[in-house]
């Protein structure tokens, strides 16, 4: 019977690495967090903390969905355009097409999911890299947004609709609840459900997954659909928060979203990572921006410092690899 050398110490090692794997970016995050707190005390104020999470939630909700797609080894650049398009549709239903609360929530979500489905469908069936498909969709739905709105923002939402982005549940902003809810559900799905495990399997080795009898295409399409749906949710939150369907909404979101996921430790090659990392990644980006604003750092320097912090945070996280392969 093959016996492993030093079985015991091996396992202790294993456990440590698993732990570090999980906390790596958390540690980097805490360093940044404490640093800002030390520099500007108001940073630690509960109101500010909630403020940051609320700011982050719009990107964060999308990042949850993006985690699924990136775990599969995919990518989606169209999320920002989906935000804008669903936002305009929601605003349209609120202001122009009858004002139904139900329709102005449900239709944008369905449209978001539908665009996501298209992204997944075209890239899997056409065997195209999702980068290029979603780049095309990004352009298409930015144009469609302008077309639907005829080039002008649509504003004036009902108070009920405004609750989505601006409401409070006790002391907690509603978007924060939505965001954290998404994170928790996604965490459970990824860890405990067949769907979640297959996402990892496909991202880890698509061919093996296929040969093992997994319906790879179906799961891929599902992940894109989910991402589209969550982008639609983000579009609702944003439109409600701004009290206006904006044409330039969501521009550049794709980079912030992907950055959150990647900073959170999910591999762009797929198969590794998770949604809790994404939560930390999104918070890190939000905290840096908030902290620099509170410090009143000059715009030019903000950009420079942001870039440096992002790189250093992931470097700190990736130190674990050093340990592992050493």
């Amino acid at each position, binding site marked *: *019977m*093959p*016996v*492993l*050398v*030093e079985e015991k*110490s*091996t396992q202790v*090692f294993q456990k440590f690495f698993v732990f570090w794997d999980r906390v790596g970016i958390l540690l980097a995050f805490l360093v940044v967090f404490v640093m800002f707190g030390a520099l500007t005390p108001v940073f630690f104020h509960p109101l500010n903390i909630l403020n940051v999470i609320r700011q982050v939630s719009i990107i964060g909700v999308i990042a949850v969905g993006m985690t699924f797609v990136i775990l599969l080894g995919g990518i989606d650049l169209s999320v920002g355009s989906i935000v804008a398009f669903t936002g305009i549709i929601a605003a349209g239903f609120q202001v122009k097409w009858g004002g139904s609360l139900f329709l102005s929530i449900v239709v944008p979500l369905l449209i978001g999911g539908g665009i996501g489905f298209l992204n997944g469908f075209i890239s899997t069936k056409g065997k195209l890299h999702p980068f290029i498909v979603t780049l095309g969709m990004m352009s298409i739905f930015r144009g469609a947004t302008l077309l639907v709105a005829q080039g002008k923002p649509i504003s004036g939402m009902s108070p009920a609709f405004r609750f989505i982005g601006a409401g409070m549940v006790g002391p907690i902003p509603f978007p924060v609840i939505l965001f954290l809810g998404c994170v928790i559900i996604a965490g459970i799905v990824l860890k*405990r*459900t*067949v*769907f979640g*495990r297959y996402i*990892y*399997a496909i991202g*880890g*080795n698509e*061919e*093996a*997954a*296929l*040969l*093992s*009898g*997994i*319906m790879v295409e179906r799961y891929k399409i599902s992940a894109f659909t989910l991402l589209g749906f969550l982008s639609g949710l983000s579009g609702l939150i944003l439109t409600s928060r701004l009290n206006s369907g904006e044409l330039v909404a969501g521009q550049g979101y794709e980079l912030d979203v992907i950055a959150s996921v990647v900073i959170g430790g999910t591999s762009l090659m797929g*198969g*590794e990572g998770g949604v809790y990392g994404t939560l930390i990644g999104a918070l890190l980006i939000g905290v840096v921006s908030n902290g620099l604003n509170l410090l009143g750092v000059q715009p030019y320097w903000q950009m420079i410092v942001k870039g440096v912090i992002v790189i250093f945070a992931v470097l700190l996280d990736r130190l674990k690899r050093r340990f592992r392969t*050493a």
Partner: protein
Amino acid sequence: MSDAPILHFEKLTKRFPGVLALDGVTFSIQKGEVHALVGENGAGKSTLIKIVTGVYQKTAGEIFFEGKPVNFSSPHEALKNGIAAIYQEFNLIPALTVAENIFMGHHFVTRRFFVDWNRMRKEAQELMRFLDVDIDVDQKVRDLGVAKKQVVEIAKALSHRARVLIMDEPTATLAQKEIERLFRIIKVLKSEGVTIVYISHRLEEIYEICDRVTVLRDGRHIATRDVRDVTMEDLIRMMVGREVVERFPRVSHTAGEEVLRVEGLTRRGVLENISFSLRKGEILGIAGMVGSGRTELLRAIYGVDPIDEGKIYIRGKEARIRSPLDAINHGIALLPEERKVHGLVLLLSVLDNLGLPILPLVSVRGFIQDGRLKAIAQDMVQHMNIKTPSLFQRVMYLSGGNQQKVVLGKWFARNCDIYLFDEPTRGIDVGAKVEIYHLMNRLLERGASIVMVSSELPEVLAMSDRILVMREGRVVGELSREEATKEAILRLALGRREEYASVG
């Protein structure tokens, strides 16, 4: 054994761009038998089973499963119909656990979508017990050695409780002990009425467990016989189309001066105080059980994995090897164990892969001299009998054995002094093996030396001048050519005679 064919192939044909992989193959597999499928590398064995399981679509012909014509469009469908396969290449997800990999594609479900971890782990552990191996089912597959991965593949195929189980070279990466275990399991399955299709290049195995054998050559069906009715010589002749006289053509040399000495090499948790030396013109065999650290030893010498302690001397001088390039500059070459992961760039052509280690040698000021490169590569293809439509075929489209030949050819093309071979003849057919042994002899004549890790005991016994036996990351014994027998090696490798412990 009943007489109804469970699988029948009628004029089955498969054409790839540029290759006719199967050419009107007709034969049947009986229910409940162990049916061997043999043939040279590239004969079409893997293609045949991949068509059965729906990975590829046939070009022409028919497949009858239990009398009905079938045409599975995906492995998913084949599995649903009770046909499972262990493919020639690993199909495991490195980042997932052993248990998850085993039940991939049919996770145990409790409440609708949720995975039942407890049941899954328990069943996985049961399978491990059934297979009589010690693998922690919660371990990530990434951290397993090749042999253990193969065991996981077997467990995965068994988990489907299929009626037809196809095994494409399941033993290519296993050592003696695991093979014996696998055979016991095959016998159990057979007694339960499972039909097994068994592909292997180790012909002894056919005689041990198979009932009937089908020979393919160049995509054509040559014969289907009762195993009892054919001798191994006949079988080889049918496969190769000619006589193979000597299966292990070892020419003995007088070993020269020492070229490589390893002293106290340690890599914590993996390798423990390993010392040995290698002399010019000899083959040093390394035997051992799964996970005994043989692969790790070669990688450490080659500078892939950092070492914690120990020294390496090359021709008497201490060498500091920190990267493969350092090793190559010291005249060392490594043939890695997992060809698809470490050996080949699958997307690139045969030419590019063969050229990889020698590009700087055939270029002037950074520009490659195409003619020289092609000549060398063409030479290799001919010598190694690599079956490919052209030098420009992508390696990913070659058969497994031919891929292995490309890995070998890569290093034969570059003159090195010390060759580290890790399972060099894995998945290579009988005829081609002999060719490779000849090539090894030629390397020795040229003044090179070889360290050969192999799990195929007959090969180690026949080809080595000396044999090191490893266990649990240590060298537990050294056997001279005369001392070496199968029993002696196994005794050391399994650790029943502690007095052999640690040389050096």
